[in-house]
């Protein structure tokens, strides 16, 4: 395979479009799940809240305005083909410029502060993004992107379970984390679970899981059935839409896994709100 040149500007334009689109247009997987839940709910307040979300997402799409004011911190999972060379710039700078233009030109909220503890000064363009890059074979760049709101991010948790905890330990930790989140993360939630790897790998898997469409299942049947089982358990919690009760506490639950150490079984739970924004592109 030959070396392929991609211009920095093309990457910038693609990233800009990803973040504007994901903040204006909710994905088909989420909108379908909300509509199904609205029909399925019996409690009037739950039906009404879900109807408000349907109306809200329609207004956002029609008027091209953000569906939630928390347009998030920009997160990107990049598969970077090893035959790609960026022309007229660097990949990192091109991505940051795309984020900058999306948040400024697209009337998205600038929610990023410089230093987490001391300065906390707004960077005014929502940069820097959080970029997870994996070098893969090929001559393309694949990007999965999402604007991650922090009302739900703050409800996330990680635990270094050990092997004897087994699948029951995984279930307990996921359900405990969701119970603790309760009405705070803008339910109905989307729950991302990362199992395996190391401490940081589990967290990354959990984030990646929130960006996978919720109408897809883990390819391993055992995890696919665990996804279903946990979602069913969560929807028995009566948290409900907006935390006001009902059968819809979560719209979806995705699990991603990775091999791990003989001594460990890390589990991370990344909570996302119903505004689970994700878009992808291949350049």
């Amino acid at each position: 395979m030959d070396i392929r040149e991609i211009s920095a500007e093309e990457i910038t334009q693609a990233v800009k479009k990803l973040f504007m689109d994901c903040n204006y247009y909710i994905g088909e997987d989420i909108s379908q799940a909300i509509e199904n839940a609205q029909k399925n709910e019996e409690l009037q307040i739950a039906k009404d809240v879900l109807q408000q979300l349907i109306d809200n997402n329609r207004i956002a799409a029609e008027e091209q305005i953000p569906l939630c004011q928390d347009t998030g911190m920009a997160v990107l999972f990049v598969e970077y083909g090893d035959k790609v060379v960026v022309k007229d710039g660097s990949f990192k700078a091109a991505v940051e410029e795309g984020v900058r233009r999306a948040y400024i030109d697209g009337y998205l909220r600038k929610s990023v502060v410089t230093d987490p503890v001391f300065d906390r000064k707004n960077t005014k363009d929502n940069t820097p993004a959080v970029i997870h890059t994996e070098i893969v074979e090929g001559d393309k760049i694949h990007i999965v992107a999402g604007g991650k709101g922090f009302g739900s991010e703050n409800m996330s948790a990680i635990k270094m379970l050990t092997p004897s905890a087994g699948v029951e330990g995984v279930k307990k930790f996921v359900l405990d984390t969701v119970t603790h989140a309760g009405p705070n993360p803008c339910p109905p939630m989307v729950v991302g679970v990362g199992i395996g790897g190391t401490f940081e790998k589990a967290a990354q898997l959990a984030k990646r899981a929130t960006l996978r469409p919720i109408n897809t299942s883990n390819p391993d049947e055992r995890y696919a059935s665990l996804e279903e089982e946990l979602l069913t358990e969560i929807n028995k919690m009566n948290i409900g839409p907006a935390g006001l009760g009902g059968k819809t506490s979560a719209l979806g639950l995705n699990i991603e896994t990775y091999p791990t150490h003989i001594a460990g079984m890390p589990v991370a739970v990344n909570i996302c709100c119903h505004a689970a924004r994700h878009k992808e592109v291949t350049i």
Partner: protein
Amino acid sequence: MKKITFPITNEQLKDLKSGDRVLATGYLYTARDAAHKRMYELIQNGEDLPIDINGQTIYYVGAAPAKPGYAVGPCGPTSSYRMDKYAPSLLDLGLKVMIGKGMRNDEVIASMVKNGAVYLVAIGGAAALIAKSIKKSELICYKDLGTEAIYRYEVEDMPLIVAIDSEGNNVYVR
């Protein structure tokens, strides 16, 4: 659906019960994490606040920028528990209504009961819809905080739910 005004009257406030759905018209102030921290520090130092909050309403929100032709950008509620550390001091100064989403801690609820205040919630994530009930937005202070500055919103039929009433009844405790 009950109709209320902001600033709220004593009669309206006493009439609100946990779980009630209301439409609010009038004006309120916005403030979230950074503005609360500043106001809290002023109170600690015995200094005056930039706004007289006695009898007033605070909405926990940081709006997205308004597109041209819009009064305000999308502006749904942010999680209220992050303001729990600061809320009792403001309630002691006469703050009557807090609007946000999610749970409050026991200290805030006790202070609400003591001071006769209510906690209302808006639907988290319904920001584009909620913005339709905001008719005007005016910057009051802390401009340097950007989206976290204090604004005065004029609202009309803003859809809200009473989460915790002035007797401490809590919609989230079932």
